[in-house]
């Protein structure tokens, strides 16, 4: 029973990874990262059930909170980027290199 949860979380996680490395739109990238975090949350919750302890649920909550903070910052950054180049393609932002 637990395994299916884990499989799901792992699949989500991998989807997230694929999203990060394949997509060039900043928004999509951040969403993929959120996906990964939620995969982690799912795992936490699932394990919490296995161990029959509340810790996992608490942890999931905390992760969500942090993820929210991160997302807030991410949005700010997105706005900045759009201000500068009016594009959200990560490849546009490659002045720093070499």
């Amino acid at each position, binding site marked *: 029973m637990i395994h299916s949860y884990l499989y799901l979380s792992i699949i989500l996680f991998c989807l997230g*990874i694929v999203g990060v*490395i394949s997509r*060039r739109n900043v928004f999509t990238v951040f969403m993929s990262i959120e996906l990964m975090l939620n995969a982690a949350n799912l795992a936490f919750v699932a394990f919490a059930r296995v161990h029959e302890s509340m810790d996992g649920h608490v942890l999931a909550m905390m992760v969500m909170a942090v993820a929210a903070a991160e997302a807030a910052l991410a949005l700010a950054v997105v706005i900045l980027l759009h201000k500068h180049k009016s594009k959200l393609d*990560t490849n546009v932002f*490659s002045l720093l*290199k*070499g």
Partner: protein
Amino acid sequence: MGQSVHYLGLIPLFPLMGAVFIGLLHVFTCKNAKLPEKVYGLLACVGPVLSFVMALKVFFQLKALPVDARFLSHNAFTWFSVGDLHINMGFLADPLSCLMLLFVTLIGSLIHIYSIGYMSGDKNYGKFFAYMNLFLGSMLVLVLGDSPVVMFVGWEGVGLCSYLLISFYSEDTNNVLAGNKAFIVNRIGDLGFVLGMSFLFWGIGASGFDYLSLKANIHHLTPAIALTVCLLLFVGATGKSAQIPLYVWLPDAMAGPTPVSALIHAATMVTAGVYMVARFSFLYAHVELAGDIVAWVGILTALLAAIFGMFQNDIKKVLAYSTVSQLGYMFAGVGVAAYSAGIFHVFTHAFFKALLFLGAGSVIYAMHHEQNIWKMGGLKAKMPKTYLTMVIGALALAGCPPFSGFFSKDEILFSALATGHYGIWAVGLLVACMTAYYTFRMIFVVFHGEPRDQHAFDHAKESPAVMTVPLIILAVGAAFAGFLNMPGVQTVSHWLAPSLTEHHPHASSFVLVFAMATSIVAFLVGIKIAYSKFGKGAAEPVFSGFEKFAYNKFYVDELYNAVIVQPYKAVGSSIWKTIEPNVTDGPVKAVTRLYMMIGTAFKVFQVGYVRIYAIYMIVGLSLMSLFLSQSLN
């Protein structure tokens, strides 16, 4: 045992101090205030004369001692001492060194006096005498040194002075080059000397490295080492005493002032090699083979030099080659284990060769530094003293009885014959004949016949007394020194006996007479040919064929230049131009270049696309997890 006397140390010290004093005087005065030449002259002669007096003192003190304990020694101080190696700055006066001492100081003093006249007017007058004194000091160290190492000090010292004096007229490049040649060739010999000493030390040096201890332990030396040491030391001798193959420097050394040629390159320094071999007689006497090699090298050198001597035009060159050839005789003598004969020839040769050189110097002086004999002639009338003395010298050199050269040379030939070295005897005889020829060729051409250069002839006049008096003294020596070791009398041989390891061959009196007769014949033949060709005066010959070949000394210098000097320089420049930057420094350069290349190449990976960075992460991560999964099962 012999006794220790302190004044031995003084003998070399006098001239050395003189050298330092005169040298400083010269250095500090030469720029502005010039000192009168008299001062230098007097200062210069003090040292040698004092040493000569000391030498006499030594001689008489030795004479007083019983024959088997005839040596004086003085150990000044411990020079250096490391592990088994103990070297004292010690001096040893035994009959052998005493003999050398006497004639070195005597002739040294005479030549110093002579130089006062000869060098007059030279701007480096002081420097000259400083060098001369320095030389005499080193020579005396060489003679008196009680161990090979101390001898080596003198050995190198005289080499240095010879270098300095050959390149004395340093304005002219050729003189300096001649000086370099002399020093470098000598150094080649010295390498042999040093290595020889090293082997000797590791052989038997541990228990004392002075001659007496070495003599005592000589039987501990393995034959192989003994032979090696003998040959290596002989290499040293060939360098110093101008034997094949290292004789080439001596003729060029004539670039120096004539008194230098007389003192250093005829009378004293060049005989150091012979002296050294005689010193090591206790060693050479043990090694037959080494002796034979020495003898043959010697006699062949004598032959070669005689051949060259017959075709030289430069009066000093003639004498130079005759010196080389006489040195060859000496080595032949010591080679056949007739050490006393060899040393005796050194002794007599010192007189007549110094005489000849000084005479030649006097001629050159008179002819305003003209050295080509074909520019001279008929000088007999102009400078009788010089003529007479030089004839005496020539007769002695040519080995005319009863002049000194006859007895000493005859002694050598006789020993060769008596010890069964017939080949050496034969060659020796031939050389004797040639010697007579070229000596009198020179005499006839220079003094007889018509003057070839009228102008020079008119201005030519007899040299001042300060130059002629030494000539006369030397002439006396050249004439009568031979009687000291007449067959039957053998004073010198007996005198030397204690310090030499030789057993006189007991040959029948017939052999003795035969040897004498043959050498007299050789002399007569030689002089006859010379007279018939040049007696009436002759024009300068044009050489062709073999003569030309001999006149150019068989192109040996050119050969050495092509085979040794040029390749050496080539190697040098190739190292510097090619090997250093490309081979030795190659790896370093390569590493640097690689380093920079990689550095620039690596910038490519910093593409600047954040996505790519994420991909790096994932790729690395997946690789790691791959290894992980393998390590798990």
